[in-house]
């Protein structure tokens, strides 16, 4: 049974190994097979899940915390948390939202903690300038930095991971109205930074 699953996963892994930008999220059926295989101890099943979900999770964390090292830690910790709870995971539910909920909550916590964190004898006053990710414009980096972590999380869940406002409300355990207002304020802010009224030319 396990070897059959592993074989199936090994085949599917080909698609999971594609570049992050070139691949679609796995079908529900295929993902269920990966989860079942990973629960049974299959290395291939685990790798297929990881390859399919790492890039979106990592990117989401980065968009919220704006720190490459922290984003890597957060996404890694989310996968470790998922592995610890793997046996209890209900295979009828999709894996992605489960993982994204951990990632986004940890990223928000990290961003808030960084704002509070200070120690006597802090080595330097200033923060190291964040490295800009490939494929982003300076304007977007600067505009996102003006949002608070909760707003960034809402924008990332909506426009990167493509959840509906209702799904975001469930993921973050918030009233739907709160999610809508966060999204509205965040987009207003981003638009005023990136697309000021009166600007000319196609967008």
């Amino acid at each position, binding site marked *: 049974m396990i070897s059959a699953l592993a074989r199936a996963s090994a085949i599917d892994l080909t698609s999971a190994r594609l570049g992050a930008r070139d691949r679609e999220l796995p079908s529900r059926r295929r993902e269920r097979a990966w989860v079942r295989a990973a629960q049974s101890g299959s290395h291939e099943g685990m790798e297929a899940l990881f390859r399919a979900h*790492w890039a979106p999770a*990592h*990117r989401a964390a980065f*968009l919220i915390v704006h720190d490459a090292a922290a*984003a890597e830690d957060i996404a890694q*910790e989310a996968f*470790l948390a998922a592995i610890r709870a793997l046996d209890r995971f209900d295979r009828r539910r999709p894996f992605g939202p489960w993982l994204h909920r951990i990632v986004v909550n940890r990223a928000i916590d990290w961003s808030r903690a960084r704002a509070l*964190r200070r120690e006597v004898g802090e080595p330097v006053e200033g923060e190291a300038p964040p490295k800009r*990710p490939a494929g982003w*414009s300076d304007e977007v980096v600067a505009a996102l930095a003006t949002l608070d972590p909760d707003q960034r999380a809402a924008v990332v869940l909506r426009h990167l991971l493509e959840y509906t406002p209702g799904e975001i409300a469930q993921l973050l355990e918030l009233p739907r109205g709160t999610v809508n207002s966060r999204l509205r304020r965040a987009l207003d802010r981003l638009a005023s930074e990136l697309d000021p009224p009166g600007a000319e030319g196609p967008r």
Partner: protein
Amino acid sequence: MTRRSAFERRLRREFDGARPPRADAAERRAWHVVRAAHAARPPVRAAHRAARLAAAVAAAVLAAALALTPAGAKMGDWIDDVVNRAPEANRASLSSLPAPGRLLVVADSGAWLVHDDGGRRRLGGFSDVTWSPGGLFVAAARGHELAALDPLGHERWTRPASGPVSVPRWSPDGYRVAYRSGTELRVATANNSDDWPLARGTARTPPAWKPLAAPAEQVLAFAAGGRVRILQADTGDELGRTPVEPTPREIWWAEDGRRLVTVGSRAVRIHGSRGRLLRAVELPAGSKAAGSAVAPGGRRLAVIATRGSASSLLVLRLDRAARPRSLFSARGEFAGVTWSIDGSLVVVGLPQADQWLYVRPRGAGAPDSVGRIRHSFEGGVAPRRGSFPRPAGWCYREPADLGTSGQRPCSSGSAP
């Protein structure tokens, strides 16, 4: 098409096209950790039940053999012998820490930070590291350079030195970092604004800051000239010195600075806060100290004692005159020792078995052990022969974890 929806599409395009810096390397590192954690999971429940049944049958057969047959006595001896050669690793790889907090590790591939959930990060190519008192920063040595980093590995500052930098140690008030440059002991301010020499011709023993001293009286103990000297770090005023004794391997302050402890190769010496010798505890005959670490409360000292091809982990009470107690012995040489920050475990390396042992200081039961330690920290660097990843210091995950207990949030491991 509304202006708003056009803007949202633009935003989505930007998001889709973006990748975090060094995303491929991050994915490789993460998969390494995730794979290890997945491999270390206990088998599925069905297998659990089968294993439990098999273990129960095996235990029953073994008990019957031990109790009922003359050969049972021999089998008992054999089992003892096997356990003492090297315990079976009951964790296949480092998928989590056995106690809360974060552990600094120094390996050939550099310095690493391990979280209690098993996540680990390479901080950089450093040969020694130490926590800041609150666990928010790390001081690190790399060639002729001292560096301060945050736990994500971001370098906050670096300071060049004339000699090879070693044994950095952060002061308890957070404002100073002591380190050796060649054989010179120096002190740098924690914001890198100043740096001054304190002593020349010092031994390679890590210096030890006296805990809980007043901010204006930061006191440092270090080995030089056959003694341990106790100096006021800002003025260089000597406050005390020990009698002439063999150069210690480690120096510790115990009981909140009331005792100065030096660990030499044959004995542990306990001094008053000005260096007067109070008592010396000899290690078992023929044994040699190969590392030590003081417990977070400052009342117990763990010492690795090696004799021939065997090692023992001893614990010595520092607040009372008592003989050292052996917690665990095994064939092979232990390497590197540190306490978990909650004081519940002592971590010691067993290079021959490629394991870390988690030994309970109360001596209850066999230690847990975790295998494939070299692999966990190889980071693409082939380890030198004889070297082994060394736990260098344990810290709570966040300073807030401490509450108001007043306990020290970070501990240091044995000397390199």
